[in-house]
């Protein structure tokens, strides 16, 4: 995925350096409570499991990733500290996990609101600098869990990202907000024409609830086929139990089924980005 070679030109071509181009994937939605953090954690876990050096960044000022995975997240420096101070060394923000290829950057102590959040473009350069530093650290993939709404720091993240996945709760009210989200993403693509929209990811799907199934089907009928991801995330008690233990679902004993879903989702997203 995206390896680039630097070649010198001293009479003959010599391979001097190989570095990995960082793929940055934002997990974003207009609406809150659609499962962005759950998707971010488990997707990052899926990437890390296949050997990709993965950085899970908590760009939600609420610090949901940190609250899900670490007990001391409130006292740790993180993403918003780097945004507030571009000289903040990224290696001091990174928290390793027991899975060697997965690391986390918590939200940090300086929240979006302290940065005068709301105005788009304020932190764009620093977000880009942050991604550049992550690339220099040798990461292959960066999954960014954002706050709900496509403005402020989230808009800056999208302006600098490679791709975006839009989780959407499989229920009628949530799905009706899709036009607003599409409008906002259209504006984002004006700023960042290379932003790849991987598609809408249906979450909390309840196969035994007619309205939930119908909402998924209606969205598939409404949007182009490529705009709605094939994989869906079911509503499962396992997510709550995993959250209680501070773990991705995939590492739970009964988590094989969910793990397979996120592996498949990871492959689908990769295929979309590499198209």
């Amino acid at each position, binding site marked *: 995925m995206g390896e680039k070679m630097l070649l010198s030109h001293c009479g003959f071509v010599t391979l001097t350096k190989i570095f990995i181009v960082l793929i940055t994937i934002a997990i974003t939605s207009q609406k809150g409570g659609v499962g962005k953090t759950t998707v971010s954690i488990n997707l990052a876990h899926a990437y890390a499991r296949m050997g990709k050096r993965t950085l899970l960044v908590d760009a939600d000022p609420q610090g949901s990733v940190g609250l899900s995975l670490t007990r001391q997240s409130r006292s740790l420096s993180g993403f918003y500290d780097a945004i507030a101070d571009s000289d903040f060394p990224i290696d001091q923000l990174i928290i390793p996990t027991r899975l060697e290829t997965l690391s986390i950057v918590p939200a940090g102590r300086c929240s979006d609101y302290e940065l005068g959040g709301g105005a788009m473009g304020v932190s764009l350069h620093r977000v880009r600098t942050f991604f550049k530093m992550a690339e220099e650290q040798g990461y292959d993939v960066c999954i960014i869990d954002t706050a709900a709404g496509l403005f402020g720091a989230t808009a800056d993240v999208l302006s600098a990202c490679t791709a975006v996945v839009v989780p959407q709760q499989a229920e009628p009210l949530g799905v009706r907000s899709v036009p607003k989200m599409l409008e906002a993403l259209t*504006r984002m693509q004006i700023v960042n024409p290379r932003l790849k929209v991987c598609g809408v990811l249906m979450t909390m799907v309840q196969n035994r609830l007619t309205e939930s199934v119908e909402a998924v089907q*209606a969205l598939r009928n409404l*949007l182009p086929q490529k705009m709605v991801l094939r994989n869906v995330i079911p509503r499962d008690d396992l997510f709550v139990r995993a959250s209680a233990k501070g773990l991705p679902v995939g590492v739970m004993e009964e988590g094989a089924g969910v793990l397979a879903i996120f592996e498949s989702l990871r492959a689908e997203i990769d295929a979309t980005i590499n198209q």
Partner: protein
Amino acid sequence: MDPLQPWLDAKEVRRLAEGLLAPPPEVEEAAVDAAYGQNFEGFAGEDDVPALSKAGQAVAVDLSNKQEVPPAPQPPHEDKAEDNGSTDNALSQQADTASVATASPAQDAEKSSPTAEPIAAKVDSPFHISTNQNHSAADVIAVKVNGQEDKAAVSEVSAASSDIVKEPSTSPAAGDEPIRKLDAQGPFLSRIRQFSQVIREDLGAKAMFLIDVNGQILLDEVENAKLIQVARTLANASQRANRQSAGAAAVGNLHVKIGASSTLEVIPVDSRYGLLILGVIFPGPIGAVRVMQVADELYRTIEPRR
């Protein structure tokens, strides 16, 4: 019952979704970095906007011409134009606002120095402004929109402009083929929307906004206050520069690079409603000839049919 269809415009949603899935326009890497470089930190923060706004207004004022400026009628605003279905009705409803608006340049003029230079001359701008579009092409538009069809003059200036133009156009329809003639009818806003559709389809425009000289928004598909502010400031500065050089009211056109493959074309058009400022986001600069065609088509769209 379908849980979605009654709640949203399926056609519009599908159009938005297909637009998002479209491959990004090809832009050369050099072109991406030419305007800003790696260290560009973005536009000024919110705190700087009022200062920019004041400066822009001061630039628009020309003391020598202030007596000659006729009290321009206000263009119809979005909701009122829709309600009445007639630009004339909307105009009459805006009469009070118009009188206030025409008074404000004179008030501003008292605060500004008559010898003040345009703001662009004083401030190092991060924007890339095409020199060829600042004067000559603008004069052509002035001839066209004022209804003085001088084809010889148009072709002469167009030829001169094309000699000066060095930038390759990255817009999909950058050829010399004229854009579709729009026979727009109906309320003002409806006609402008048809115009928007034509420039999307024929010229690859991404989005547009139309404001009047006072910054009142008539149509906004961009929803970015800063871009509107930039367009208004540049249009006002351009208008002043043209007045100084030509000695008569004239409009100009400018473009500003706003993203890796997004350029904001600012096209002021003199109309019966006063100066209207069209901002259109294209993948790249569209060149003087195209700008002239867009201005011409906008003028035709704005003018109600007899």
